[in-house]
């Protein structure tokens, strides 16, 4: 497939899917390698940087999703007549932030940072779809929490890497220092 063509097909697929889609799934449909896909995604992203674009590409781990540009949120809100959702409490925002910067992260690890139990906050964030819960690969009885696409959309941030001070906050100095000691 030619590159222009690939970008076009990719855009069609993302447009039709609507929901987040795994990159691996796209590889199968398109019959290409990850390298080509990443290149095409890069080109698509460039295209959306144009001032006229009302669409943009969000990504989270191995998933991507086409969404409306955050700067047009005000107008889209009028069209969709979304019911105003309650603001998040400061505590819930802290927990969501820890998950955004440090996720996937277990409940124990979140509580170690906050110094307090957060079972209820996690539950309310899960019910609102702002975070996701997955099985913990390191502990079969436990879960790990990660931020959801819906949370990124609310923030209008296309990728966790673009969160304020991501480079500093995403690193746990202690874990890093242990690694560097070895």
């Amino acid at each position, binding site marked *: 497939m030619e590159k222009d063509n690939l970008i076009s097909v990719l855009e069609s697929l993302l447009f039709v899917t609507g929901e987040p889609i795994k990159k691996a799934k796209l590889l199968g449909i398109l019959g290409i390698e990850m390298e080509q896909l990443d290149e095409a995604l890069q080109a698509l992203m460039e295209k959306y940087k144009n001032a006229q674009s009302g669409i943009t590409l969000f990504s989270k781990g191995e998933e991507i999703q086409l969404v409306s540009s955050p700067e047009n949120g*005000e107008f889209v809100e009028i069209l969709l007549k979304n019911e105003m959702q309650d603001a998040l409490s400061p505590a819930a925002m802290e927990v969501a932030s820890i998950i955004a910067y440090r996720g996937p992260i277990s409940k124990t690890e979140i509580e170690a940072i*906050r110094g307090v139990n957060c079972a209820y906050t996690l539950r309310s964030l899960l019910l609102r779809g702002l975070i996701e819960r997955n099985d913990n690969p390191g502990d079969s009885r436990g879960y790990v929490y990660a931020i959801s696409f819906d949370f990124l959309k609310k923030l209008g941030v296309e990728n966790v890497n673009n969160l304020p001070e991501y480079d500093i906050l995403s690193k746990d100095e202690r874990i890093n220092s242990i690694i560097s000691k070895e």
Partner: protein
Amino acid sequence: MDYNIKLEQFEGPLDLLLQLTQQEKLDITRVSLAKITDQYLEYIAQAKNITLAHLADFLTVASRLILIKSKALLPMLEFTEEEEEEIKDLEYQLAEYKKFKDVAVKMAELFDSLDHSFSRDGFVGLPNLFYPPKNITSEDLLKSFSKMLGEIPVQEKLEQEMIENVLTLEDKILHLQKTLRRKVETSFSELVSNAKDKVEIVVSFLAMLELVKQRIIHVEQGELFSEINLKHISDKKV
């Protein structure tokens, strides 16, 4: 010194500590932690919204603060390696928590602004057809439903425990006072004979100290680690 400055509601011991240092316009150092130790202890003694489950977290931090404070008062005091480690832990935790507390404010600004993105529903306009997964049976549904049911009681029990454990230091103080009024004299081991866990024993101990401070009871201990006897100061008339 007047400690009765009202803080915003705090969530957990680290939040309380951070708010106290900020209120005093202090950086997070050992010197400043030593300075606010008394205020911290005062707060957890008064706080009505600390449940027993959370109290354990508050007390862990309290014990570390007391260590720091005693070193500030008695410079010759040497920390053991373990104590030094605990204090470093606390300092590290505070610094970590502060980072997220600060960034959460910026995140809230993003979250509350109008600049949201929206996605579209998938496969719009698709004809209403039936697309079942292959090989699915009613046994699969049964299995999935039973598994889900099996996971419910665990969650329920946890919530129950949280509710039952709403027991504050103030409750304990009242309980202790009542016991002593009734019996005039008792021992610490008798007081905590029904304690459900370590936390409750620590709370009882804190409550006892508080009552000593308020000169409501009198305590005696023959030697280190021996029985503590408590006596109500009955002739205390106001």
